[in-house]
């Protein structure tokens, strides 16, 4: 490590060493690019990617002292390190499922790997941005690579041409709507800059100190910023790209979007709101409360009608955006802790449910239709049991961790006396039981209709079992995660007006 430190300090930028995780991810991306270009060795590509990510993860843990670097354009604090660690971790799990899936569908491209790494880099930049410009760069890097990733279902198999077409449609839809979102965010940044004369979160915070200091330009900037972020986090009414893009993308990419990209978006939402606009929290907390309520209601009701489980999970992820952003309706330490906690645990539940689909889609004849799940408990009891754990966790039934997430949000909401949103959350949770239970009931209570034979790779099995164990252990003993979340939220609050 010391050689790298010497090298980077040699560049003359102070505190450059805290950028090591990003540098490792970037270098890995280029190495993978060249390996793909010259050797096409698939095992080597996967191994290099995962090794690079593990190294990056290690370097995240090796950073003991956070710092501001790149002359104030980049902040590495415990908040961003925490999220970076989880982003890298989830990417490792997801990338481990890439190869068997792509080979089976005959859409294997080395591009998947280094584009994923670039997207990850974008997310890492995003979560450690103290500044609207850095945030924008990270967001764009993430979004543009994901547009490409969705559209890469370029199969050679004639029977999958429909998927090919749909994937292009989904990618294009996301490109258009995401592009609009980007435009909105850039306009918001322009307005905020016009009103305050700075891009820096802290300086914006020092200017927007109370209700009187908000002029029309600043207000418009805040509103547009919230809209743009809501669009990226697929909150209703800006969710229309989500189901199509999620359903159309190759399932490992869906997992990457629904888990890693989402969590990074949640992190930046929290960071922008708390660091840039802490003194006007009453305004944005109500906006997020409305968005959360709409997301829960629309997401859950539409999910009820879905016959395709992948699409259902897309709507369920909209609903989960609702549950998570609901915590912002309580702009208190408890609310932020609940927000962080739910974002982190969401990783495990969602990876579980979506990797399950990845594993099954590899088998011939599997279409993700709810009928395909019939009688799964007989055909592969272990897999069905794991899916049951994930479904109950997404539903929020103890002793799974989903309950702890919702408990935190409840505590925050009631602590801030936002009773109406708590009641909406309760009713919508009960409604969501309808579709999560359907998956469980078709697996356990019906006879199989199709005679399918299943085979899974060891990696998929290991990931699913690991996720289920994490979900159960955290459900029984969430103390460690709560500690982390409450510490993070107090650090966030303490750093206001730094």
């Amino acid at each position: 490590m010391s050689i790298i430190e010497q090298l980077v300090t040699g560049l003359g930028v102070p505190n450059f060493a805290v950028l090591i995780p990003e540098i490792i991810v970037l270098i890995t991306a280029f190495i993978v690019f060249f390996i793909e270009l010259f050797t096409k060795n698939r095992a080597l590509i996967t191994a290099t990617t995962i090794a690079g990510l593990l190294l990056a993860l290690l370097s995240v843990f090796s950073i003991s002292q956070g710092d501001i670097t790149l002359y104030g354009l980049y902040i590495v604090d415990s908040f961003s390190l925490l999220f970076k660690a989880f982003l890298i971790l989830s990417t490792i799990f997801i990338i481990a499922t890439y190869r068997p899936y792509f080979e089976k569908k005959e859409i294997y491209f080395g591009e998947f790997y280094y584009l994923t790494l670039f997207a990850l880099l974008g997310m890492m930049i995003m979560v450690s941005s103290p500044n609207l410009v850095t945030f924008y760069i990270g967001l764009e890097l993430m979004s543009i690579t994901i547009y490409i990733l969705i559209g890469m279902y370029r199969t050679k198999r004639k029977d999958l041409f429909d998927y090919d077409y749909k994937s292009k449609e989904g990618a294009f839809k996301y490109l258009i709507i995401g592009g609009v979102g980007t435009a909105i965010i850039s306009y918001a940044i322009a307005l905020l800059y016009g009103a305050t004369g700075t891009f820096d979160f802290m300086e914006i915070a020092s200017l927007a100190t109370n209700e009187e200091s908000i002029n029309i330009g600043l207000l418009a900037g805040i509103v547009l910023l919230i809209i743009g972020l809501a669009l990226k986090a697929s909150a209703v009414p800006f969710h229309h790209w989500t189901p199509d893009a999620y359903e159309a993308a190759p399932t490992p990419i869906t997992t990457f979007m629904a888990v890693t990209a989402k969590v990074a978006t949640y992190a930046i939402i929290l960071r922008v709101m708390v660091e840039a606009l802490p003194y006007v929290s009453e305004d944005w907390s109500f906006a997020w409360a409305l968005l959360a309520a709409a997301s829960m209601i629309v997401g859950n009701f539409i999910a009820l009608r879905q016959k395709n489980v992948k699409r259902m999970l897309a709507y369920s992820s909209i609903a989960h955006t609702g549950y998570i952003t609901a915590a912002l309706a309580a702009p208190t330490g408890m609310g932020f802790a609940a927000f962080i906690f739910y974002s982190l645990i969401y990783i495990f539940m969602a990876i579980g449910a979506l990797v399950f689909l990845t594993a099954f889609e590899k088998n011939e004849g599997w279409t993700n239709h709810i009928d395909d799940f019939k009688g799964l408990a007989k055909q592969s009891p272990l897999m069905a049991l794991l899916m049951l754990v994930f479904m109950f966790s997404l539903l929020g039934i103890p002793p799974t961790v989903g309950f702890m997430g919702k408990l935190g949000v409840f505590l925050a909401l009631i602590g801030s006396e936002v009773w109406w949103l708590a009641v909406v959350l309760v009713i919508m949770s009960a409604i969501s039981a309808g579709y999560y239970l359907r998956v469980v009931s078709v697996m356990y209570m019906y006879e199989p209709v199709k005679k399918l034979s299943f085979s899974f790779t060891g990696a998929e099995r290991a990931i699913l079992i690991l996720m289920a164990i994490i979900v159960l252990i955290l459900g029984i003993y969430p103390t460690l995660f709560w500690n982390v979340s409450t510490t993070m939220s107090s650090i966030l609050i303490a750093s206001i007006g730094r």
Partner: protein
Amino acid sequence: MTFQFEPANIPWLTISILLPLIAAGILFFLNERFAKPISIIVSAIVFVISTWMLFAYDFSEYKIQFYEKYTWIPQFGVSYEVGVDALSLTMYWLTALSFLISFIWSTNIKKRVKEYFIAFLVLEAACIGVFVAWDLVFFYIFWEAMLIPMFLIIGVWGYAERIYAATKFFIYTFFGSLFLLLGVIGLYVYQYFHYGKLSTSYFDLINVGLPFNLELIFFLLLALGFAIKVPMWPFHTWLPAAHVQAPTAGSVILAAVLLKMGTYGFVRFSVPWFPEASKYFVPVMFTLGVIAIIYTAAMALAQTHIKRVIAYSSVSHMGFVTLGTFALNVEGMNGAIITMISHGLTSAALFLAAGWIYERAHSYEMRDLGGMARFVPVFATFFMISAMASVGLPGLSGFVGEFLALLGTFKVSILFAVLAGIALVVGAGYTLRLYHNTMFIENEIDENKKHKWSQISDLKTSEFLSFLPLIILMFVIGIYPKWWVDLINNTSLAILSKVLGG
């Protein structure tokens, strides 16, 4: 209100929660043939522990006994806290008994045996946890976790309409429990703001002095959760569906244990926590209780499906528990608790009887039955005793509880006591009709049926063993109720202390 604790030397309660869970975990990796013996042995051990506790419990003064406490989530002040008073203890004992009986009865299960026993073992752990937990988060976790195995039990091993029934059961109770959670969190947050204390312990939350209007709100939130579980009219519609579709052992657990959770919640939480609101809502609860008693009794009279009759009768009996609880005097409270125990015994026995009949006659419909009594004398006797106990014949368990509950009600409102008393007669009507139409009317049935009945065998050993403890206990409670009243009297007084004192 201050409590006295008597810590447990050996953590019996933790053992009886963990034992079924561990057994379920081990069973997952074992061969199917181990499922039955392991389950029966484990539940027998738990039952022995609980029976021993029943005698070891010192009822001369109100103390939380066999008490254990370990810190669990310090950020929220959540701890693992278990212990028993007489109410918890009797419910815990009833749970252990019902599960032992269910396991013995289930020896003839053929379909997916291993999963069946795993589900029941997990359910047993969760049910015991609900009754002995004193920490609210912990309580809630068991309260909800219990839904998962029950959902699977109804949905996988039930009858034709099982999936609809299971889903309805799940969503209904889940919906109610979330409001319960809201209420508990509301109280917790109020405690934090006004007392600066982070604790979800029952013993702290009970001392939160609420303003009257908040008390009303929290009472209603909790009551919604409990009322769905009891179930009280008009939230009872999940119950007939679930009972009818559930397998026999599932129905037994549903009636004997799960319904008690709702009434347990009212007795344990609503009354002591919200004394003023409880007083305020007495007319409402009385009305709902009496409607439940009369309406469902009338519904039961009209049914031809025998399990449906018993299901409606359960709702009706639960109405007496509601009346007794909200009479808010010691007779009523004692009556409510004894009715809970007694109903656990009688409804379990009646559902076993219904299951037995289905196994022999392959029908639950009254028109396919009748005239069995002469061919199966032992079963007919047991069925008769259970039916009589359910009706409330003096000398059997049903009488004691309902008499006390009515006595308590009478002290508060003569009108409601009379109305409920009338319903007792209707209760006798539907239960006797049930018995009459399944066991007697030998003259009215055709030769075919008679021939069929002459072929069937009387109780098998496992069935006999499941019935026997229930029948014995019905007599024990009915003939010598003093011991039971003594056992729970101090607990009832402690539960009512805030209502009566204030």
